[in-house]
């Protein structure tokens, strides 16, 4: 098959860290090519280089046999490369049509946008995609799935022959994932080359034609998926390449919850202005409950209400002890990156270290040191700015802060949103162990995550939120095994359910 895009021996360094070392990659027409690896393996960087968004330090990119020069997004777009990025992709204030044509607007006299031509083209693209977005709708009002459709429509609007998608399924329900790959397959069958960056091995086994594995900046292997062959063996080989030592991580929690424990958190009929439609949710002491759902179905609002950042319009939240919350976006809502580790470790508690208007700096530093040590933050230097820490250690710091608070109370509640997003697999494991330890010590824990594997490894019970309501749950049996309701298919079906299903 003809190679559409070739990445040739590229290296890229960001400051002191090498993101990609001598990485090579070939994307063929008519194929879906997966790029997998754990967080920080370099897969996003290599795809950004392929799309011209990031210029490599050494090496180059060839598109249909010709070298990409200059190495810019604009040049790559002109040559038929389109990338669907994870973040910062659409301008919320613009309409669907405006976003679709941005950068390649058809014009008539005096630089006026030719709206009719633009609309006709968008219609054509939507027919190929099988989508039906309203051209004049404000982009900010779209749901996650529609935003992604618009992203792909935008790339096709530019007549892209090579599509790169960075973690496109991170925020989708299993059903939406299947629909996405159906679309991608159609685009590949029409002669395009498609590359998908992902860390979900199941998707790769089910939908991809070829897979490149990256680890610590190296391209470890590239292989075709042989659907007729032994998929289990292929899967093991890919996992081996990606993680080297471990297969899939062993579960942190392996038993059912203890029903005799008392309720520490009782949420009844909780409604919010936009998303929550009456949430009922109970968490016992020593219990870890997973909150599964497609992004935008109210979990963020729920967490923010529990954090006191948002008002509920009706309903009650009763907690027997203090509620400590770790919010989803640690860079925006969890940490002051420019400030020291010490200040961040006690963020919001400076009053505790104040007497007669003066801070007791010594006590503050001692407490910060203790939390950093307990949280296994590396390096344990409280004077460094948090920006200097790795993502995993930043998350450990946020968690350490939440865990250290209210530790004196026996009835405390921990609410953790996406506790391991963007964290490498080792740090994620340590974070899970610390969450489990906190539960063992008596805390009621609510974990919101879009990663069902994470919830199954960590939780005693999983509840599904959809359209602002709790629409189902899954438990472990007496042996600690998950019941069938916890499978991807069953949870996924709940996650996209449209009706009102309430649990007893």
């Amino acid at each position, binding site marked *: 098959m003809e190679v559409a895009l070739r990445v040739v021996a590229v290296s890229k360094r960001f*400051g*002191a*860290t090498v993101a990609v070392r001598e990485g090579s990659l070939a994307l063929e027409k008519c194929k879906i090519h997966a790029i997998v690896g754990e967080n920080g393996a370099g897969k996003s960087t290599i795809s950004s280089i392929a799309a011209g968004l990031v210029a490599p330090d050494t090496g180059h990119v060839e598109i249909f046999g010709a070298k990409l020069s200059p190495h810019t997004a604009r040049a790559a777009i002109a040559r038929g490369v389109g990338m669907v990025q994870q973040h910062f992709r659409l301008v919320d204030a613009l309409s669907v049509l405006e976003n679709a044509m941005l950068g390649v607007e058809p014009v008539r006299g005096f630089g006026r946008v030719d709206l009719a031509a633009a609309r006709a083209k968008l219609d054509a693209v939507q027919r190929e995609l099988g989508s039906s977005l309203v051209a004049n709708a404000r982009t900010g009002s779209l749901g996650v799935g529609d935003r992604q459709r618009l992203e792909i429509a935008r790339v096709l609007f530019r007549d892209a022959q090579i599509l790169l998608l960075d973690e496109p399924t991170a925020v989708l329900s299993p059903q939406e994932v299947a629909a996405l790959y159906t679309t991608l397959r159609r685009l590949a069958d029409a002669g395009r080359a498609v590359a998908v960056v992902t860390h979900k091995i199941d998707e790769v086994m089910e939908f991809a034609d070829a897979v490149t594995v990256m680890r610590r900046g190296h391209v470890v292997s590239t292989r075709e998926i042989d659907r007729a062959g032994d998929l289990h063996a292929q899967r093991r080989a890919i996992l081996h390449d990606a993680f080297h030592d471990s297969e899939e991580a062993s579960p942190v929690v392996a038993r059912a919850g203890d029903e005799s424990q008392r309720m520490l958190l009782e949420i009844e009929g909780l409604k919010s202005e936009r998303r929550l439609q009456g949430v009922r949710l109970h968490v016992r002491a020593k219990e870890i409950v997973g909150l599964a759902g497609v992004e935008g179905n109210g979990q963020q609002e729920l967490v923010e209400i529990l*954090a*006191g*950042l948002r008002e509920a319009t009706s309903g009650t939240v009763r907690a027997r002890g203090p509620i400590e*919350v770790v*919010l989803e976006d640690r860079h*925006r*809502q*969890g*940490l*002051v*990156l*420019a*400030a020291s580790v010490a*200040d961040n470790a006690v*963020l*919001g*508690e*400076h*009053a505790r*270290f*104040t007497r007669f*208007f*003066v*801070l007791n*700096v010594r006590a503050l530093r001692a407490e910060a040191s203790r939390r950093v040590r307990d949280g296994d933050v*590396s*390096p344990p*230097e409280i*004077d*460094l*700015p948090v*920006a*200097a*820490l*790795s993502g995993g250690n930043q998350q450990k710091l946020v968690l350490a802060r939440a865990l250290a608070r209210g530790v004196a109370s026996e009835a405390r509640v921990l609410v953790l949103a996406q506790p391991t997003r963007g964290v490498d697999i080792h740090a994620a494991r340590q974070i899970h162990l610390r969450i489990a330890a906190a539960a063992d010590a008596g805390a009621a824990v609510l974990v919101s995550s879009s990663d069902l594997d994470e919830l199954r490894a960590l939780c005693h019970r999983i509840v599904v939120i959809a359209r602002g309501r709790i629409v189902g749950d899954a438990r472990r049996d007496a042996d600690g095994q998950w019941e069938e309701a916890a499978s991807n298919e069953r949870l996924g079906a709940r996650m996209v359910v449209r009706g009102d299903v309430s649990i007893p």
Partner: protein
Amino acid sequence: MSARGTSVRLGLEADFWTIASGTAAAQLAFAALVWVYGQSPRAMTALVFEGTWGSAYGIGQVLFKATPLLFTGLAVHVGLRAGLFNVGAEGQLAAASLAVGVLGAHLPHGTPAIVALPLLAIVAAAAGALWAAPAAGLRARGAHEVISTILLNRVADAFIGLMLGLGLAEHGTVRTEEVVAGARLSRLDRFVHPLEGSAASTAIVIAVLFVAAILWVLPRTRRGREAELVAQNDEACRAEKIPVSRRRSEALIASGAIAGLASLGTVLGYKGYFEQGLGAGAGFAGLAVAILGRGRLVGIVFAALLFGTLAQGGLAINAYVPAEAMEVIQGVVIVVVALADARLRAWLTEKLRAIVVLKREGAS
């Protein structure tokens, strides 16, 4: 070396390069302007030096010009530290000067300095704070402080004209009456005779001590520390229950109070009364001082002296090159230092990241 030691060392390095770039920018801009005006940069530099650091009188005049800049520079810094641009120091200083002038004149004759000075300092701070308060309130409602403080400057101008016209001025003039003797700050030449004739007063000593005290206190109080965190990431602070908009309001009001204190130098240390326009320009120069001074005592003092030198040096060359050229230089320095500062910050973070990587690799 510990991370703390390294950060401190790198911080000092960054301070040095900021000051160096600011000074170099000032000299280059000066040379360029003088050259455009058809004068020899060398000769003009010599004139500037002669008029400033070349004589005891000149030094005294530089100190005199630097005095209000120490206050306004600190005022702007206190705002910047909380992420706010107080470009209203002009108006805050003007309002405070009027209040100090009027009240200073109406104190009972014979009021001892020990009573008069602290009282007037409080009045100055209160008046400055009062003039900043609407901007603080507006900021809490979401209106940007740059627009509101600038508008308040204009209101102050008109308000002062109105008040002086309505009878606060000495009859038939546009100035207030002389303040009582106990409210005057002594000229420095009473203690240091070579400064004879220069307008420097003991206000500069107060100013330096005050700047040192505030800079020491800021990171050691809850409010000071929290204001800085709010500036760096208000959303995270809100999530951790820090009262974000209150911290901002406090910082802007404190900034106004400090700007108001500059009137101690202009009214009590220099004129002995208030007239419209007294101290004008010090507020905007404060922005330059704050940016160049980077919140360090040495930096702010150096920056105040630099701009004091420019102001006084401008008078020395006014016969050849307009003194206003020095304002242009001030603007250039602000931009250059801001550019250097942005680079230095990125450089600092990068260096510290590298240290972290080294430490982790060393550990594993």
